[in-house]
């Protein structure tokens, strides 16, 4: 059944290739997402979170080179854990089931195996990192190489890149070098303490070059390569403005058996929040405001405080998280996904020094959740 399907797909692809001979036909639409590993500090800084996603229907990934823009600091990491990793992969050996993978990113000393992988990946790494992932009791080790950019890449603002090469998942079982479980990468996100965000304000454009495999052939398809990018606006901030006004009302109350007019004091609190990304309004932000832990509104609104009471007003903004996410493989904990705002091809600015003129297919803005608080003391 599966062979028939594969054959049909292959035939379909062949016919399409003939019909559109000369064009880059491969279905390959990866996305790169960059955010912060922890809520962004007002002035930037802190570890970085990087995510990638590839649709299940796309050709398998052979190589991904992620270029780190100038301004980010890449430390030479001593051996040890750099961050956590989650990933998903479709396992051909399990009927295409989605493997949720978890593990960590480690800095390691090069080994003969990583040296071989670096040679196959055609890189001379300055550091060797390892994505150690487990699924179904099996451990998958994927070397990640930290590589100095070429002179042209450095001149374009990319002095360092991360390079990963993956084994082919869709060659026949038993083929040497085939991916374990026939696992095809669908998504991965990892935090990395060795890459710290800039403290200087600015729009930082990460870029990446992706090369797929020729489907079922197990050989790279350089002509199918695409450039995709991720933008970081630093700082991305929420500004909460809170004002208060004393409100005095007169109410009738029974006091010692008689109806009397009594003055009551309360505080009218007005709030409004704005989100800026490197000084400009954020493309997408969803704001909720709470007072003393209870929701009191969205980006703006008001509420009353009783006399003498105080409350912490908190504005929480979910920024640039409206289009999609890099799945962690934990559907019950969707909040753990790395969300993004997709700018599409129109948001992508080609980097010839990286892509050599290949298509610039997509750009995203990495999502994050930020907040601001203010304590309001009510009038007496």
């Amino acid at each position, binding site marked *: *059944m*599966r062979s028939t399907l594969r054959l049909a797909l292959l035939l379909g692809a062949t016919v399409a290739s003939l019909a559109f001979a000369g064009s880059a036909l491969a279905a390959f639409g990866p996305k790169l997402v960059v955010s912060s590993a922890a809520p962004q500090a007002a002035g930037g800084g802190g570890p970085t979170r990087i995510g990638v996603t590839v649709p299940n229907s796309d050709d398998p990934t052979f190589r991904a080179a992620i270029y780190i823009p100038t301004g980010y600091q890449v430390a030479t990491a001593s051996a040890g854990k750099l961050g956590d990793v989650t990933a*998903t992969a479709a*396992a051909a*050996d*399990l*009927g*295409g*089931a*989605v*493997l*949720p993978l*978890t593990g960590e990113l480690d800095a390691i000393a090069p080994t003969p195996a990583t040296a071989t992988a670096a040679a196959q990946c055609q890189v001379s790494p300055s550091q060797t990192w390892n994505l*150690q992932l*487990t*699924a*179904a*009791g*099996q*451990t998958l080790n994927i070397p990640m190489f930290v590589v100095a950019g070429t002179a042209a890449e450095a001149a374009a603002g990319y002095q360092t890149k991360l390079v990963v090469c993956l084994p082919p998942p869709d060659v026949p*079982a038993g083929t040497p070098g085939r991916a374990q479980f026939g696992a095809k990468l669908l998504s991965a996100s990892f935090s990395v303490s060795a890459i710290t965000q800039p403290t200087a304000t600015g729009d930082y454009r990460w870029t990446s070059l992706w090369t797929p495999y020729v489907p079922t052939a197990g050989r790279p398809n350089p002509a199918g390569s695409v450039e995709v990018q991720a933008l970081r606006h630093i700082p991305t901030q929420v500004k909460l403005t809170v004002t208060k006004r004393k409100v005095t009302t007169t109410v009738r109350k029974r006091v010692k058996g008689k109806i009397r007019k009594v003055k009551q004091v309360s505080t009218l609190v007005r709030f409004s929040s704005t989100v800026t990304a490197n000084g400009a309004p954020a493309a997408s932000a969803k704001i909720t405001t709470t007072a003393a832990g209870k929701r009191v509104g969205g980006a703006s609104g008001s509420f009353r405080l009783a006399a003498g009471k105080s409350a912490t007003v908190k504005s929480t903004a979910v920024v640039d998280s409206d289009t999609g996410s890099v799945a962690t*493989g*934990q*559907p*019950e904990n969707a909040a753990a996904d790395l969300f993004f705002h997709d700018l599409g091809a129109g948001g992508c600015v080609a980097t010839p020094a990286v892509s050599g003129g290949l298509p610039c297919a997509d750009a995203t803005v990495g999502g994050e959740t930020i907040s601001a608080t203010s304590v309001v003391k009510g009038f007496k």
Partner: protein
Amino acid sequence: MKRLLAVLALAACPVALAAGSPGVTPTTITIGGTVPITGPAALFGSVGRGADAYFKYVNAHGGVNGRKIKYIYRDDAYDPAKTVQLTRELVENDHVFAIFDTVGTDNTVATTDYLNAAKVPQLFAGTGTARVGDNFKSHPWTMGYLPSFRAEGVVYGRAIAKTAGAKVAVLAEASDFGKDLTDGLKRGLGAKSSAIVSSQQYQPTDTSIESQMSTLHASGANVLVLNVTPQYAILAYLAAHKLGWHPRIYVSSVCISPNVMDIIRASVGAEVNGSQSIAFVKDPTDQTFAKDPVVALYTSILKKYAPGAKPSDVYNFYGMGVAYTMVDALKHAGKSPTRASLLKAAQHLNEVNPFMRAGVKIATSPSDYYPISKAQPVRYDRVHWVAVGPLVSARG
């Protein structure tokens, strides 16, 4: 002179022991087993690693009666022919004292004649088949560990029999494992056994079960019983999902490790909710057991003796549970253990095993070769198996 003779006699003692009990020296006891680290049941591979970690922990705390346990486990890729070959090597080349926790029903059955002829204890094999549990007279040297597959099938059959309008489809491995579960299901259904509207089998080497699943779907069944191993459980859930088929699913207890369920959940989403099974070991990933001391012990043992092993892979936990029983049996085999004394100890277990759920005791007798007598019906709810009702019998 007398003193010299006494010294010589003492010195000769360990040699005599070693000669009398293969695999036993004054300082070590060597046991061996086979585990599918690769192949179609590689998901069970962590059983060996978990057991090994537990033995190392026991060794670090003085061993058993002063001896360290040396555990040799080899990858049989779930292929009974390889199990036979590797088991023979363990007995004849490695001179193991006993075979421990052979994983797999066919793998166990394939080696019982040889081991019983050689009078080598084959203890706590990873099977609940009647061909082992009921054959204690003809094959006394072989004892399984899992709850009886037949009893497990009975539990599902009884539960389904209470459901009006149930039309049952069964997918089963073509083995004693699948047969026992299906026989038990029919027995549990009793007068309602005609509710089974379709049955399909697969070979443990099959790479696809799509045609079987299509046939089962076409039967119009609204209940699906999966008498299968983990890989095929994943394939079955995925196939049902692709077919748009949403039956109530009963899945064999050998499949319910969180790391298997994680894959199913990531693949089919909420459709996995409501699945039913039975459980006998605690789930170290479940908040219900978060404060259980054995979970902290399990995590610390894994961290120290099996670095890189994932605590959510409950086959590690099961491996430790069965290793706990093996240590218990070795202790009761005495300070000068023989294969016969080990077998006798295994036939007289009366153990509260901390890795098992409350109320699930490990008990045996010379005529009771099912160490686990009770199990807990469970239902899958979002991320965990939740206990449903009281413990039920898991005897043959």
